[in-house]
């Protein structure tokens, strides 16, 4: 009699244990699911007037919402102050982020700092540009060589043996500047030797404007000026529009990025074309890739977010106007 009671007890308790175990497993799983990924993105700068960075951050935020992660955007206001950016990277490391995405300001001076990220066991994603060492888990950027090539090929159509070409670049040792210039040189092919000068504006409208003016004085027969980022392109366009403006414009300008001012210059005909980066996609892909890296999925080391060459004729197509005019402005 006693023995059979014990038997029931054993059966009943083992069943209870089983259900408890199931419950435990379940709650552990839900706990796991609830763990939110903490990600920090440090752009080169945060500038409300800069469509490129604004769209990029917008894209990143959209992905963060899509994937339910905790994304902190932390950037300075000066695209050349790498020391300030390095301090922000250190802050992100201290905040024990799961993954840090950086758009390094300097190709060389940011290297030591981003290495620290990896050394702290934090996943590292480069967005828009990288550094001189291969340290990141992935780089999401416009394929700047390809974008430069698009510029070069478009320019080539209106070049001849006598054409003189000048390049207004942005920051001398930034990887984007280096790659775009290389792409452009490859794109114009046989006319590469006719590039008379490359100047650097340090991502400053005024400096770009001033340098272009100097170029126009120095080379009166200049045929083509290529601005390799928004600041270079706008500064160049301003100078050309001011000096040669309107119907008498002799020098052709090709630009990079899509600020409102650039769009006006495109409508006006100062720019022959502009190459637009898909910055919204870049931001979105950065977050998406960061999550893949965290999950341990294999990702290609370099992911191209794409670029588009836009001329006056195709600027108002359904797709291109979306690229040119992001509507997060209020």
């Amino acid at each position, binding site marked *: 009699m006693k023995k059979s009671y014990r*038997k029931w007890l054993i059966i009943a308790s083992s069943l209870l244990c089983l259900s408890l175990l199931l*419950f435990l497993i379940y709650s552990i799983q839900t706990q796991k699911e609830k763990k939110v990924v903490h990600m920090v993105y440090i752009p080169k700068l945060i500038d409300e007037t800069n469509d490129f960075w604004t769209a990029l951050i917008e894209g990143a935020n*959209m992905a963060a919402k899509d994937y339910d992660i905790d994304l902190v955007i932390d950037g300075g206001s000066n695209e050349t102050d790498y020391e300030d950016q390095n301090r922000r990277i250190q802050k992100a490391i201290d905040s024990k982020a799961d993954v840090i995405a950086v758009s390094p300001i300097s190709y060389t001076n940011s290297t030591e700092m981003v290495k620290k990220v990896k050394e702290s066991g934090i996943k590292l994603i480069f967005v828009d540009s990288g550094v001189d060492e291969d340290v990141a888990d992935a780089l999401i950027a416009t394929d700047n060589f390809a974008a430069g090539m698009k510029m070069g090929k478009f320019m080539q159509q209106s070049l001849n043996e006598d054409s003189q070409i000048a390049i207004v670049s942005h920051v001398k040792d930034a990887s984007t500047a280096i790659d775009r210039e290389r792409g452009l040189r490859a794109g114009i092919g046989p006319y590469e030797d006719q590039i008379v000068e490359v100047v650097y504006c340090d991502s400053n409208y005024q400096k770009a404007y001033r340098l272009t003016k100097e170029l126009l004085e120095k080379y009166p027969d200049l045929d083509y000026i290529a601005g390799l980022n928004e600041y270079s392109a706008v500064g160049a366009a301003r100078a050309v529009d001011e000096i040669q403006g309107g119907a008498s414009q002799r020098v052709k300008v090709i630009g990079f990025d899509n600020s409102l001012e650039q769009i006006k210059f495109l409508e006006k005909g100062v720019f022959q074309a502009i190459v637009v980066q898909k910055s919204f996609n870049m931001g979105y*892909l950065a977050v998406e890739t960061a999550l893949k890296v965290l999950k341990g999925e294999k990702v290609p080391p370099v992911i191209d977010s794409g670029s588009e060459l836009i001329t006056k004729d195709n600027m108002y197509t359904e797709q291109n106007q979306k690229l040119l005019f992001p509507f997060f402005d209020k």
Partner: protein
Amino acid sequence: MSDEKGKWRLKFNPLFHFRSIRTTMLVSFSALIVSGLLVFLLLSLNYTTDTVLNNSSSYTLQLIDQVNADIDSYISYMDNLSDMMVGSVDVRNYLFRYNSGENKEAITQRLLNTFKTLKDSREDIYNIGIISNNGEYLINDGTDSLNAYMDYHEMDWYQKALLSGKEAVISSSHVQNVVQNDYKWVVTLSRGLVNPVNNQIEGVFFVDLNYSSINDLCEKISLGSKGYIFVVEENGGIVYHPQQHLLYSGLKTERVDEVRNSKTNSFITDEGDNSKLYTISKSDRTHWTVVGVAYLEDLLGNRKETQLTYVLIAAALFVAAVLIAILLSSMITKPIKALVKSMKKVEQGQFENVTLQTVGHNEISALTNSFNIMTEEIHHLMIQNMEEQEQKRKSELMALQSQINPHFLYNTLDSIIWMAEGGKNREVVLMTSSLAKLLRQSISNEDEIVTIASEVEYTRSYLTIQKMRYQDRLEFSIDVDPDILDLKIVKLVLQPLVENAIYHGIKYKETKGMIWVTGRNLGSIIVIRVEDNGIGMTEEQLAHIFEKKTSRKSNGVGAGNVNKRLRLYYGPEYGLTYESQLNVGTTVTIRIPNSAWEEENEEEL
């Protein structure tokens, strides 16, 4: 051994051949309960899912119908404006100089006032203006100029308005670049204006609805944490989508075609964890389709908790049901087990304390009752049988005992006559007295057990007679320890052995035969030996010594009978043992327990 084997086999029988009814019942009950619970679980979970989806679907439909209605109301409002403008004399006069009699300044002022009133009344109107083929225009507060670098004649909304006659045209979302230095995402309603001079459409009225109002309208609708709304125009172009960028660059796709082809107002996509509920609302006014997309994960967010609750309830029910099954099964199997236990006892021949108590009036108690009656009956019959057997044995023995072989009697009497005639009085007296003793002993004592002394005396009388009959051919000696003479022995065991020795051993011997009867006390046992030097036996004869020989002329009490009775009485370890050698002699040994010794030892113990 065979029992062990049986257990072993039962233990390792295949699945569902359990050792006991109880286990079988338990397992089958549990299986039944589990399957029942599973069905219940699946049904209820499904039911919840369906209910949640239906509710969500109708809720989403309400929301997006509202969005559609809001958009319609914007458009209707703008359409009403266009009605007003189309009919306006000032518009005609301004654009086409129809009635040049009036001061242009005054007309312009009136129009600007109208524009201002309209714009002030609605915040979502971004641009309002009129424009003609020949370049006359008036936009907003009159200070805005046309975009010098882009030709408005080429613009979509302008061309469509000219082409569509008097109907208003609604554009998709686009960037309005008609005004200098102004690029705004808007939805444009445009309508052709007729030049009264030639009755041709040569101008356009347009009003731009700020796109952000539609954006806000769609954004503020919350469909779970990840759900969203998008708007598609008639030809499939996207008016609003939160991820338009990603769609254009192919990073994401939207089920625009599925939405446009859908006959129902909702459908569910099958994408695993990312399955979505699409709810569709079409507007007859704008011909736009507003689509609400909700993630099932969001909608069924608390489904996991519900599932857990269901699973826990099911587990609790299962435990309870198993406990009840255990109780029930043991209630049924307990009396059966008791019955089995009792039966085992009966099997082993134990009839004491096997009667079982019955509870209730079910089949098992009926079975128990029958069992009780049956065992009692069997017990009774066995006792009766044993008594009968005993009786039979006794009477058999008595019959045997009372039978003295008539030939032996005749021969003896003949011998007596011969001796009497020969005047051998002393011998006659001895023989007659021996015969008398023999006869007296055989009829007088009815007891089965006699003293060894009595048995020895009986044998002595028999031997005396036989010795006299066989003259000098037979000699005997009896030597029994005096301390065993008073001990008891089964009656009529010694004389038949002696008789056998004479008739089967001595009788066929040429020379004088000798019989030795010895009785010895060996402590725990008593050994009585009858030894002869007769012809002995072959091994074969010796092997069959205890078999019944009906043809015998003796009084019928053979060695087999003696042995049987000894064993019956004292147990299988006692009885007769024969040793014989052909032409040398035979020795038969009676072994019986020493009752005196047993008593002594018991006392010592």
